[in-house]
């Protein structure tokens, strides 16, 4: 019979050493997640790149023109801000949809730190005036803040349609373009416009058409007050109110 457990064993004793616990994830070692790019991804990426550029231009405008986050509406501040906006906008390749996205981003992302209605309006106006498309739609109805100065210097051949309300100085200095506001516009609408057409489907505020030199303003609702108009026409519900009977600036008629 074979003897079991002979004193001289050839089996090596257990060697003590560092723990060699198996890697429980070893099979995934070579896994590299490669996201398959679909056309939509590329579109989203390029849209985001454009939005970054537009956002950067706006931030620079604020840096230069609204250092203290205060911006006074004066003739020269408007002109200067517009020149700065023009400078940045001209360098960006964007579409009308990007302008709409920017308007939405103004209030709905953390990436744009400040919405100052004056410079924002100047910047949006510059974007509209230099856009490739002749017809631009801006959906502002979901913004809590009313943007001022929308449609500044809108040139001939452009049509700007605003879904929602606009703030003060809508369509000022219009240069032959056509502007449609689906909601209400506040004071100084069409001030200093030279030619073109503004249609406000609801009500309009005071000083309407102040120092306007030409063009037409159509109001679907009520005109609260007419400004000192040099030349041009103002219609209220298809009725010509300027030039017309004795009209006093900013008076109810």
């Amino acid at each position: 019979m074979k003897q079991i457990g002979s004193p001289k064993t050839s089996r090596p004793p257990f060697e003590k050493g560092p723990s060699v616990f198996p890697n429980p994830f070893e099979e995934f070692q070579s896994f590299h997640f490669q996201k398959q790019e679909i056309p939509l991804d590329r579109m989203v990426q390029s849209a985001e790149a454009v939005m970054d550029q537009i956002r950067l231009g706006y931030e620079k405008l604020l840096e230069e023109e609204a250092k203290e986050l205060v911006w006074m509406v004066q003739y020269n501040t408007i002109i200067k801000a517009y020149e700065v906006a023009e400078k940045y906008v001209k360098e960006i390749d964007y579409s009308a949809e990007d302008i709409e996205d920017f308007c939405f981003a103004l209030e709905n992302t953390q990436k744009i730190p400040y919405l100052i209605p004056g410079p924002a309006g100047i910047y949006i106006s510059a974007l509209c005036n230099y856009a490739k498309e002749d017809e631009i739609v801006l959906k502002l109805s979901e913004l809590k803040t009313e943007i001022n100065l929308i449609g500044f210097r809108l040139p001939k051949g452009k049509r700007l349609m605003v879904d929602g309300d606009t703030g003060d100085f809508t369509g000022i200095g219009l240069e032959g373009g056509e502007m449609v506001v689906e909601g209400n516009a506040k004071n100084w609408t069409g001030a200093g416009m030279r030619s073109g057409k503004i249609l406000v489907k609801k009500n309009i505020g005071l000083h309407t058409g102040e120092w306007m030199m030409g063009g037409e303003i159509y109001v679907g609702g009520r005109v609260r007050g007419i400004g000192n108009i040099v030349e041009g026409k103002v219609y209220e519900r298809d009725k010509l109110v300027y030039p017309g009977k004795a009209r006093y600036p900013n008076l109810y008629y």
Partner: protein
Amino acid sequence: MEKNGYQKQVMEIYQFISDHLYFNRPDLEVKGEWFNSAILLSLLTGLVKGKELIIGEPGLGKTTSAEFVCSLIYQFPLGVIWGSEVSGHPEQTEEKIIGRPDLGKLNQGEEDVVWTNFSQVPVKIVDEINRLPETKQSMILDGVDRGNWEYLNEMIINDEYCLYATANYQDGGTNTIIAPLVDRFDVIVESRYPGANLSFLIAKSKGKEQVLRHPKFEKDLYRILKSKIAYEKKIPKMEEVCNAFGDYVEETVGVKPLKREDRDRIRDEMQALDLDLDASAFSRMLLAELSFCDRYGQKRIVENCEEGCHYTGYLCRQIRNCASNRLPTSIKLFAQGLAWLLGDSQIDIEHVKTVMPFALSHRIQWKDEVLSQKERAKRDDPFQIFLAKEAVKTVSQRYREQSDYLKDALALGSKIFQGEPLEPLEGDHPIYTEIKKDLQRKRSLS
């Protein structure tokens, strides 16, 4: 994958059983092919040396389906299989299941064991296992788990064996199958009613099992089993007779049963198959849900979920117990078998998803509120299997949503494990916490 005709041979066995011996309706779709789950899983059980619990109403072919599969996979005539079965009843004893003292030798003052056929043949069928009282179920635990059968001071070890147990639904004469025994079954399957028309055909085709009987070979095998030679020496002798029976079956019915070397080669081929990354990540995700507890470290049947737990939406909230370590083994074993049978070169997520409900359903203990919520749901499966299928579907949905991220997290885990100074990925699923726990343990060791 190497094609050597074994898959075709096994599929012919499946087809023969399905067409001639066990009338059924296909109820399981795998990659566009329909199978009957009872036959398919029984075949796989035989091939992978697994353990299967077959449930169903009385008289719906639980035992006979297992007998036919065993006869064709292991080349045993039905007469020998019948003579090796253990039936569950309250008076069952260890002597009838495992072995008894050799009384002749005992009279001469020698101690020797006469092993039962059940303990000696590689195909083991326990009929109506839930009629065994709970105390007696423990007798077969070790044998079922490891193939070790002990009596007096002697032991035989089955190198190759598979086990089928049948169980009726609860009635006056049944007992609960104890949790440790239930956990030892790799899969559970229902032997179902084939429908009125097929059932009617069964009545007309009485005596169909005669094709798998052969009185001479049966006697030869009984003689070998009763002989006093050592168990190890009996095995080649039995194989000789089995091979002769296999040749007879091939000649008479045209189906070639599997020889021992065929089965060994098939198992080698199966073992060479590994899980692909998706199958592995998905299995890990499911296991994490079945074992995770944020509050108490792991699921325990004695502990209840905390109100307001962050992981309320996962399976851990719906179950009472923790997944056992046998669960992943069973899943892999049967997924390997299925992948092999379908001729695939890797175990993919479809194989895993197919076998998972059958490996899970008897191991999960659902909370009462889940049971009462779903008991009236429309279904074709027994309640436990239905719940397991639903659970797998739910986890599969979750996996689809984050498969790449999870694989990324596991890949990163591997890099961190190897010592790279990275941080594990965060994610809203128990598996991410489990990954972090493993990495923490590694850090504490090194």
